């Protein structure tokens, strides 16, 4: 396949510290200070970068072999001793192979186990559908008591990992394969679980994006600005609990909303946002970008995002469509929202 347009990076471009490497480093720093923190993996210490923890703190590192469900239950048991286990494996295994263990042994029992699920979405592009994970946001947000976070880049991942340790109950942090480009310039920004980051102001339309798609949304908003269209961009890093106020404000201020996620359009960010919109009873031009009830083809991640309309090109097309879309106007809009 020809190199797709829309992205300026490739998976070979890893001379900066990657998303996964930064989380590995941050987690190690946390572990050195906080003896409650233990790290577990299921034969993916190197792939997930949680192996950095093992290098520095081997006495609090457990590799359970290729047994993800077992890892989750063991982590649950460890909390009985006051420990805070951080487990890392690929998103597809954490969210689906081990799903019932996550639900029953972590969420139901309110156990403070933190899951760092790597290689989410189609970030492991060439590995194919067995190693893609476009369902985890939907699965995880359906579990009562689970907090679900999809950081936009390495810096945000670092902030999320730091924030999750003392956050009550289980947390699911979804990141990519580790080669995603940075969106923030440093770790110095306001980050709060459950609070969207308004990255760009806009009047005509709001893009609510999560994970790797946030950077693409910013790029699309920049292009729109060059054409005189004012686009707000929300980095919705926390899928649950969702920042409903930010969604309602976007609805009130711009009346046109696009959601973007490296995930199926069923049950993820888009549906969470749609639920908030529907409850307001207000008309809104709305479009969900994601995988449209399909499994992804194999390929380079940037090609896949382009093919499925999740990069700046695809979002730009969606902006044009949503600007043209009609919706019911309410005379008393501002009174009732």
């Amino acid at each position, binding site marked *: 396949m020809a190199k797709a347009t829309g992205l300026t990076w490739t998976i070979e471009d890893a001379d900066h510290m990657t998303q996964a490497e930064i989380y590995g480093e941050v987690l190690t720093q946390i572990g050195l200070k906080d003896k409650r923190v233990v790290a577990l993996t299921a034969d993916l210490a190197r792939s997930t970068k949680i192996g950095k923890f093992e290098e520095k703190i081997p006495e609090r590192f457990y590799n359970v072999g290729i*047994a993800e469900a077992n890892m989750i239950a063991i982590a649950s*048991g460890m909390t009985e001793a006051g420990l805070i286990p951080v487990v890392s494996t690929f998103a597809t295994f954490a969210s689906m192979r081990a799903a019932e263990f996550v639900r029953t042994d972590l969420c139901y029992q309110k156990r403070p186990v933190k899951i760092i699920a790597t290689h989410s979405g189609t970030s492991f592009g060439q590995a194919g559908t067995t190693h893609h994970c476009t369902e985890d946001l939907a699965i995880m947000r359906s579990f009562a008591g689970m907090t679900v976070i999809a950081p936009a880049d390495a810096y945000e991942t670092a902030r999320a990992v730091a924030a999750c340790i003392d956050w009550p109950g289980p947390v699911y942090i979804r990141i990519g394969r580790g080669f995603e480009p940075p969106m923030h310039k440093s770790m110095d920004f306001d980050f709060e679980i459950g609070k969207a980051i308004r990255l760009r102001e806009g009047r005509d339309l709001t893009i609510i994006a999560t994970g790797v798609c946030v950077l693409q949304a910013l790029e699309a908003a920049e292009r729109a600005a060059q054409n005189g269209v004012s686009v707000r961009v929300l980095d919705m890093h926390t899928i649950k609990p969702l920042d409903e106020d930010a969604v309602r404000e976007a609805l009130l201020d711009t009346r046109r909303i696009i959601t973007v996620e490296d995930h199926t359009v069923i049950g993820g960010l888009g549906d969470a946002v749609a639920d908030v919109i529907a409850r307001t009873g207000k008309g809104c031009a709305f479009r969900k970008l994601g995988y449209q009830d399909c499994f992804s083809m194999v390929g380079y991640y940037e090609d896949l995002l382009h093919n499925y309309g999740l990069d700046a090109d695809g979002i730009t097309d969606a902006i044009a469509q949503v600007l043209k879309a009609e919706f019911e106007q309410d005379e008393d809009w501002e009174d009732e929202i």
Partner: protein
Amino acid sequence: MLDAKERKRLKDKARQLREKIVEVTYTCGGAHIGGAFSQHEILVALYYKAMTVDPKRPDWEDRDRFILSKGHGGIGHAVILGDLGYFDPKLLMDFNKTGSPFGMHLDRLKVPGVDFSTGSLGHGLALGVGAALGARQVGKAWHTYVVLSDGECAEGSVWEAAMAASNFKVSNLTAIIDRNKFSLDGPTETLMRLEPLDKKFEAFGWKALSIDGHDFDQILDAIEEARAEKERPTVIVASTVKGKGVDFMEDKAAWHYAGLDDAMRDKALACIRAGK
């Protein structure tokens, strides 16, 4: 070896609590009574002799941990916890009723004394491995006990946990299998063969002991032997009788889950009392 007085104390307690299980089953309309009776002496031995627990401090951090991996035995577990004073045993009369803290499978956040919420089979051994590893990590001396059903051993996750327990040399973990030889749909050996169960665990690196699961001397001797083992986890394969103590229930898969009418209750109670 127990002295005669201690043996009688445990046997009397077991009989009294078996009667209580019949009463609660009668009142609540149905329960997993067959498995509650097969596991019964194991749980009585643990709670009234072997384990270090304090009903006045259910969250005491130095207590031994207990996991009923066969969560459907919850009625037997709840009756013991009520008897020990973890909660008012009168509450058990609401078992299964809408809004009750007690369902068939006990919830640790609702029932004081329950360390882990179970019910979905194949979770408990891994939870136990975690609890035991956690104790070792923080330097605590408490021991973790997991009671499994035999049918549950068809779950692959049991063997993931068995492998991990052995790999990490979790000797502060003891698993006891209630080997009543029945799962829901029939005898384990014709449904999904388990034997040689002890040899399977040995092959996974465990110390394996085989005992009569209704004999207090054998149960407590085996637990003592397990506690003395410092290199590997121990499994006690406890041969039991499903529905033990009530003649019309014994070895009948139909009594996995059932209710009791007045005549059955009276007959069951008479049978248990005659077992003196």
